[in-house]
């Protein structure tokens, strides 16, 4: 049973994810998208990067590659799927999760540490935390503003499918703490099943203790729950 980290042309956080998972003793391998999904896949990571140069829209091309049909099927069977950054954009573009991650309000690429509030602690991705916990995790994106129409956002909220929101150090959801203008400070959402999650911040970059903290470990542990 192995986690498959899907590498598209232009993925560049695939090896980071691999090292982070190895540190957590979660068996993982990088899978080139054209090779298809290995039969023994126990979890899936859509890693960060700039697949297909972000042409058309970030994640749009990768979301239409044939392996995504296999990933949607696996997700429907309950295989955990985690999309990070470009992987989150791919997740939304492919319909695994709702909404869209689009141009930051600043119209700039932003690379900085942010705080996230855990909105639910009963999902595989957040079982290591308590609701309301504040995590410090880096972002690195130009298109991370969560956008969805207001009615649909209300429904997603009432279905408890917002997983993380940008907050300040004390867990307050302020405008200043929202780095990219995301609606209702949304940083990560769940798919139809709790076993599918996407987020713009990078938990794999705060998993190895030597390189900047361990707040992201719990998110990645969602991949071992299968």
């Amino acid at each position: 049973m192995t986690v498959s980290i899907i590498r598209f042309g232009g993925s560049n956080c695939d090896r980071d994810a691999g090292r982070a998972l190895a540190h957590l003793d979660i068996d993982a391998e990088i899978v080139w998208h054209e090779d298809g999904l290995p039969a023994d896949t126990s979890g899936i990571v859509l890693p960060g990067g700039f697949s297909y140069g972000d042409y058309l829209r970030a994640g749009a091309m990768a979301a239409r590659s044939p392996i995504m049909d296999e990933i949607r099927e696996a997700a429907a069977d309950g295989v955990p799927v985690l999309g990070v950054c470009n992987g989150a954009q791919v997740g939304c573009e492919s319909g695994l999760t709702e909404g869209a991650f689009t141009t930051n309000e600043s119209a700039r690429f932003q690379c900085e540490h942010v705080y996230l509030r855990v909105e639910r602690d009963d999902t595989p991705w957040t079982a290591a935390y308590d609701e309301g916990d504040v995590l410090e995790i880096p972002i690195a994106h130009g298109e991370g503003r969560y956008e969805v129409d207001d009615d649909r956002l209300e429904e997603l909220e009432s279905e408890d499918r917002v997983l993380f929101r940008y907050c300040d150090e004390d867990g307050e959801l302020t405008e200043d703490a929202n780095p990219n203008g995301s609606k209702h400070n949304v940083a990560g959402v769940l798919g139809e099943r709790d076993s599918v999650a996407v987020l713009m911040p990078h938990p794999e970059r705060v998993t190895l203790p030597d390189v900047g903290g361990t707040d992201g470990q719990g998110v990645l542990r969602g991949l071992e729950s299968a």
Partner: protein
Amino acid sequence: MTAYTATVTVRLKHGVLDPEAETTKRSLERLGFDLEALRSTDRYEIDLEAESAGDAADEVEEMAERLLANPTIHDYDIDVAERE
């Protein structure tokens, strides 16, 4: 079969923030222009052959639905013209 050029214009839905357009508008204002609003769109010109203009439009509509536009944030228009 007839040769057509289909033009697909993809624009953000009303109410969706367009930071690049806002930045462009501010730059125009800095140059001294007076404008009320500015919207940016993406335009794709697609050459294809089809039995009729209607068939060409149907084909291109599917392209827009499946790739060129993201229905969460975009609306789009299609124009089809015979190609010389």
